[in-house]
């Protein structure tokens, strides 16, 4: 019985540590996306200290809800950090209709620049156009 309890406890610890620790892919994706967003800092954009890490494939995009303020300018930046991937970031209003934005695509890195006319809810879509299923990291900058 004691062995069973110990084994269960050990298993819980392993599961917990896996749940908390970041994988190498997540670290790579985050490091790469911060590198990309750094290009905007010289232009006065501030990188928000928060990110979204997710899994993506050609058949499965990820969509994240964000609340933006009219008057601010934003850059949404994503990366998988994997050389062969082709990523795309696009933006939609609260009804899911596409909005005009400034796109940027460079293999595993992509970004979308946007200045909302109205404050409120918007959606950021990160899609993998080419490449194997991968981990990506999404961040945003504003000014």
């Amino acid at each position, binding site marked *: 019985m004691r062995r069973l309890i110990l084994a269960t406890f050990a298993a819980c610890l392993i599961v917990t540590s896996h749940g908390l620790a970041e994988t190498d892919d997540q670290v790579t994706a985050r490091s790469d996306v911060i590198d*990309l967003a*750094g*290009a*905007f800092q*010289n*232009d006065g*954009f*501030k990188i*928000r*200290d*928060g*990110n*979204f890490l*997710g899994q993506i494939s050609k058949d499965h*995009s*990820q*969509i*994240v*809800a*964000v*609340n*933006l*303020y*009219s*008057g*601010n*300018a934003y*850059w949404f930046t994503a990366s998988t950090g994997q050389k062969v991937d*082709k990523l795309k970031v*696009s933006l*939609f209003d609260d*009804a*899911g*209709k*596409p909005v*005009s*934005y*400034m*796109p*940027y*695509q*460079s*293999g595993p*890195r992509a*970004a979308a*620049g*946007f*200045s909302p*006319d*109205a*404050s*409120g*809810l918007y*959606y950021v*879509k990160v899609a993998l156009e080419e490449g194997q299923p991968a981990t990506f990291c*999404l*961040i*945003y900058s*504003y*000014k």
Partner: protein
Amino acid sequence: MLVLRKWLGVSVIALVSAFSASADQQPAGNTTTAADSPLSAEELKNAASVDALTVPTPGEFFKAIEKGGKPNWTSQYRPPVSIKSTDRAQMALNLGTLIADGYIAVEAHDGQQVKNVGKDVLALAKRLSVSQSVLARSASITQFAENDAWDQLNEELEATQNEVKKALEENRDTDLITLVSIGGWIRGTEVVTGLVLQNYSADDARLLRQPALVSFLKNKLTKLPGKLQKDPVVQNVNRDLDGIQKMVSFSADHVPTEGEVKDLNLAASKLTKEIGAPE
């Protein structure tokens, strides 16, 4: 708007320059696009909402109000809040409001006030057992305040807020994270509406449209454990957010009148006071 577009355009140039070595690069210059297919109902339903990206920081809210001119930030200071309560929910809500106070002091370029608020944040963090995370930042906050390094201070405040939330998570106090965010948003709304009323303009009033954000926060409240939901302060917040949600849920083409902004200011001020009131 045109100026903002120009800023974004400059950024694209910076981005393209920074990564010009990339072979498969497809810079789009400063063109705009809306050629994407609309999101399906399924996609909208499954969209992720995460505290770290979905809830804007008070600093982001304050940055937007600055576009109309330099606001009188010191007019939005409030007397120091004395929290004697042992109610952890109330402490978490207050921690959020105090962090928002830190952003106000940074916007006002008031080093002494930054340090004062920093001490209050640290005292409250200690009582929530997350002081280590704040302590690690407090030295640099003091240093930046003494050196008038306002941009770095803004970043430190945001990092402090995230460290507090991370520490709460590590302490298995995940439920309190929502309350920190709510406290920050309510105080931020009180401040922004106060500033809009000082020099009313349609552009500034439009900033107050945030229906989905309040809905997201309220949804998080409904997921709190039963014990926390029965907390009198949390019940007050939940009830008052119903009214506030209606006030910030207007169509994109509506401009809130001065009277509507005043109503929202009164509601946010009342709730901030309730959160800070001794038990």
